[in-house]
């Protein structure tokens, strides 16, 4: 949030209400998706669905509560590097899929 922006308490209250309703909807959607019938929806599909909803929920929280929709270039630069290295970390994991530790039964 820019330090020079004026702050209005009531507009923040409305923003918080929106974020809370969005969070409750996201949680409800994730729970609903997790209980979809197994014969029509496989676990990988359900996991993908649930993670998409979780990502949307995270974007709302980061955007509105952490003010990422109106931050300074410096913060975006730090986040850009973070996303790059995080993506690299996950890519290395995917790359190592066929080399996972043996004996991890459950």
């Amino acid at each position, binding site marked *: 949030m820019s*330090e020079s922006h004026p702050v209005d308490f009531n507009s*923040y209250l409305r923003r918080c209400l929106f974020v809370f309703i969005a969070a409750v909807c996201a*949680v409800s959607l994730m729970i609903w998706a997790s209980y979809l019938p197994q014969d029509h929806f496989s*676990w990988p599909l359900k996991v993908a669905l*649930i993670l998409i909803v979780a990502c949307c*929920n995270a974007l709302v929280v980061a955007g509105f509560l952490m003010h990422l929709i109106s931050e*300074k270039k410096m913060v975006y630069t*730090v*986040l850009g590097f973070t996303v790059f290295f995080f993506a690299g970390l996950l890519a290395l994991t995917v790359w190592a899929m066929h080399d*996972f530790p043996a004996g991890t039964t459950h």
Partner: protein
Amino acid sequence: MEIPYAVHPRPDTGIYNAKVGIWLFLASEVMLFGGLFSGYVLLRVGADQWPHGWLNVTLGTANTIILALSAITTLLAWVACKVGQFGKFKFFHACTLLLALSFLCIKGYEYHDKLIHYEIKLTDGRIADGHRIASDADSVTIEGRYVTDESQLYDLRAQKNIPRDEIKIPRSQIKSMENYGPWHNTYLALYFTLTGLHALHILGGSIVIGYLWGPGRRLWKTDPQHFTNRVEVSGLFWHFVDLVWIFLFPVLYLT
């Protein structure tokens, strides 16, 4: 000596130094949790079977709502400082602390529930699974059920109306007995590691918020802008902790 740019933005970055610091710290935290999530993906993909329905979704949902509410009260505490309403700040930060305490209490209950849950392998090949009610030198009593194969314990979501009876097992019939601690299997090791680290973050954040609510609020009288910046920085950390839970909840409780 006065620390530079603790209150006003530094000209080249456009933000005060503590905010740059917290974002760099959060970047390192993303990599910490990212490494653990990567470990989770690797171990889960490599597993032949994965447990479903082992955790209480109602309690997990309650904790998700509690953290979402606490993120909101943290933000409103900062807004109250910005508009100069210190009374509201105290109220919202007290709410955050109470919500954090509620989260930790629920998490503690869940841990306790897992630690008194036992899988007991019997000499006749059967497995008794349930919560320990009592134990003495001769026998162990659990509230649970018998199964013939360990695989019957994996997908609890697919099983409707699991019978729960009081079972008294003489110790002479017990081949091995293990509770659902982190040593039980890969899933529980990941569950305790991820949620334990997250709970430590909740505890750390609560200590900082508690300090700002208690002894640290003296700064408000001498330098309100500096104090407001401290509240914002602690709030950013708290929102990050909420963000981590947004992914932990579905990954551990729902999938």
